[in-house]
């Protein structure tokens, strides 16, 4: 240990020096305060023994100067005092001294004091080191959080339509990351999809789950999947990534302005409120599913509820952070207090602002305990285009053009995947006739399953007339498909734009040819299939006939020509 002795009394200084050197310490001596401070700076000792009365700078001043230079580390200063002068002792402590040693020096006491100081010094150094590490760590974490938040907002908000004129929303996270996910987008048919999700807990862990869900939301909505499909896919995703005790209460809405319909899937969120033109609660849409990520979907879990919307209707969707917002006396805002505003006393266009003001007034300066989200959909403004470049409407307008596609499917492919979504997606990406996705899907699906089930697998649709036959049909289908080793399905799609008298493009015609080359093909059976389907009405080929302008099978019955017309 390096020890500095500051004492103008040479005898004292020499005695101390010998004592300490014998103990193995490295000792430096200074003869006055000023030299002491200088040596302190140059030698960086671990401990200082300081006399009080000295020329050029007394011990008190020197101690103060030393403490100031060494503010980043702990260097004990022990005063060497001659007397039991209480006044002097107080001054020692005030000027930064850590202990005293009274003259004449006792070797044992000196050793003990130095050891005690050394212990404190080591503790101090350790503490200081830990504090530095903690600060560095904190800084690193904050940097990482900032980067994550940047990524998070870009992923969740990419293509989000929340600023569309028909939507108003408020989403207040409790911490840097929002555990409430609020996203909106248009599907290819022009319907508006909205989702509000509320993850267990809040902060980073909750927000991490929001990322895959928002990706699924945008991706599947753009491809025209229904909200039932979205819910099922999201549920499967969350089950695979989240621990058991985490889930996501969610509500998915599809608002279709043309059909004036509202489709809702609500799993665990508070009631969606449908409000009429007088601002009165018209319909409460209660959660009828488990939240997402609790257990695998059964067919029932996909079920959606459909409601009629009017132009004057408004919808309110919120997370329980709103109704569970507490004020300082722990009283909650509550759904009753919220729904009081929906009694017709507040004009509908004022509801959103009124609720926000009421919430703010209620909470006062109480601490927020959960993420809060609320969204309003104003049906009168559904048709208005969103503003701002970030908020592009994900609905392509591709003028009708000439193109053709040809697909060939081998038995091996048919055994492994259902190629239909890929076919429909190709068509939608090339032409995207708005509002026709479902019809095109239906047409192709019926033609395709006819070619596969009857053409390639030789199944007889009449089997399906009885419940037992229905089951047998599908088990037979499974067996035969697994055993299929030759044959094919060929699908050709040719699109031709259509013009009006003034040579303006008004839409297009899609010529579909589907051909199968299965074993043991019997065209009479296909004809009976056709008849069978027609007699059941609204199914299969009859459905295709109703959607398309032309449908004809060839003589052999293994090739169908269909024309699907659409207009802009």
């Amino acid at each position, binding site marked *: 240990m390096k020890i500095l002795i500051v004492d103008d009394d040479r005898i004292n200084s020499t005695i101390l020096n010998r004592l300490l050197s014998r103990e193995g310490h490295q000792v430096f001596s200074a003869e006055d305060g000023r030299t002491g401070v200088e040596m302190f700076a140059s030698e960086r000792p671990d401990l200082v023994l300081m006399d009080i009365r000295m020329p050029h700078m007394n011990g008190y001043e020197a101690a103060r100067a030393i403490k100031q230079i060494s503010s980043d580390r702990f260097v004990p200063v022990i005063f060497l005092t001659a007397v039991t002068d209480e006044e002097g002792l107080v001054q020692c402590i005030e000027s930064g001294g850590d202990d005293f040693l009274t003259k004449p020096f006792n070797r044992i006491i000196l050793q003990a004091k130095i050891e005690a100081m050394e212990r404190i010094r080591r503790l101090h150094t350790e503490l200081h080191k830990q504090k530095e590490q903690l600060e560095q760590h904190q800084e690193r974490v904050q940097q990482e959080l900032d980067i994550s938040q940047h990524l998070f907002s870009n992923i969740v908000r990419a293509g989000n339509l929340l600023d569309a004129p028909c939507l108003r929303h408020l989403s207040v996270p409790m911490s840097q990351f929002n555990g409430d996910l609020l996203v909106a987008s248009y599907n290819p048919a022009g319907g508006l999809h909205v989702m509000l999700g*509320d*993850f*267990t*807990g809040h902060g980073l862990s909750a927000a991490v789950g929001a990322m895959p869900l928002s990706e699924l939301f945008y991706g599947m909505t753009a491809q025209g999947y229904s909200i039932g499909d979205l819910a099922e896919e999201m549920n499967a995703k969350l089950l695979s990534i989240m621990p*058991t*005790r*985490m*889930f996501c*209460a969610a509500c998915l809405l599809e608002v279709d302005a043309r059909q004036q319909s509202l489709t809702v899937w609500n*799993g*665990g*969120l*508070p009631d969606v409120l449908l409000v009429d033109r007088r601002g009165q609660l018209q319909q409460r849409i*209660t*959660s*009828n*599913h*488990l*939240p997402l990520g*609790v*257990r695998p979907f059964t067919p029932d879990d996909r079920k959606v509820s459909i409601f009629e919307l009017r132009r004057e209707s408004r919808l309110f969707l919120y997370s*329980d952070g709103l109704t*569970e917002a507490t004020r300082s006396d722990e009283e909650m805002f509550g759904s009753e207090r919220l729904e009081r505003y929906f009694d017709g006393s507040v004009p509908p266009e004022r509801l959103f602002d009124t609720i926000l003001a009421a919430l703010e007034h209620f909470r006062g300066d109480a601490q927020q305990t*959960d993420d809060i989200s609320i969204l309003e959909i104003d049906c009168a403004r559904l048709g208005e285009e969103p503003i701002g470049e970030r908020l592009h409407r994900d609905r392509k307008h591709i003028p009708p053009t000439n193109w053709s596609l040809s697909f060939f499917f081998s038995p091996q492919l048919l055994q492994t995947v259902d190629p239909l979504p890929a076919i429909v997606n190709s068509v939608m990406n090339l032409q995207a006739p708005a509002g026709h996705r479902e019809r095109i899907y239906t047409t192709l699906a019926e033609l395709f399953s006819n070619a596969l089930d009857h053409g390639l697998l030789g199944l007889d649709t009449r089997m399906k007339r009885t419940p037992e036959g229905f089951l047998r049909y599908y088990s037979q289908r499974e067996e035969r498909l697994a055993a299929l080793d030759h044959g094919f399905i060929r699908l050709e799609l040719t699109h031709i734009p259509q013009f009006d008298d003034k040579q303006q493009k008004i839409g297009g015609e899609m010529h579909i040819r589907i051909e199968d080359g299965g074993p043991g093909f019997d065209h009479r059976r296909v004809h009976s299939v056709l008849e069978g389907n027609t007699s059941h009405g609204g199914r299969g080929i009859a459905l295709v006939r109703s959607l398309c302008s032309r449908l004809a099978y060839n003589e052999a019955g293994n090739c169908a020509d269909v024309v699907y017309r659409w207009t802009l």
Partner: protein
Amino acid sequence: MSGTISIARSDQETTVSIKGRFNFEMHSQFRAAYQEETTDKSRSRRFIIDLAGTEYIDSSALGMLLLLREEAGTNEADIEIANARPEIRKILETANFQRLFKIT
């Protein structure tokens, strides 16, 4: 501020009573309350979660119930959530937990 947990055990049943606020702070306490029973897979056991004294429940508490269900699941124990106040019952029903638990 969180709640307190008390446990009563009989041969077949374990009753876990939660008083006060049932939230994320209760996680380790709640888990400790049933863990002894769920590790012994050879015996089937009924769990009763008594919410008579519960004032508040949050989504993390629902998550804990799911965890109990999973950890007790292999021995086909059934879990009953009893005596919940109307507000808490409403939260359980909004999450449709009546499909996973017996709510009485």
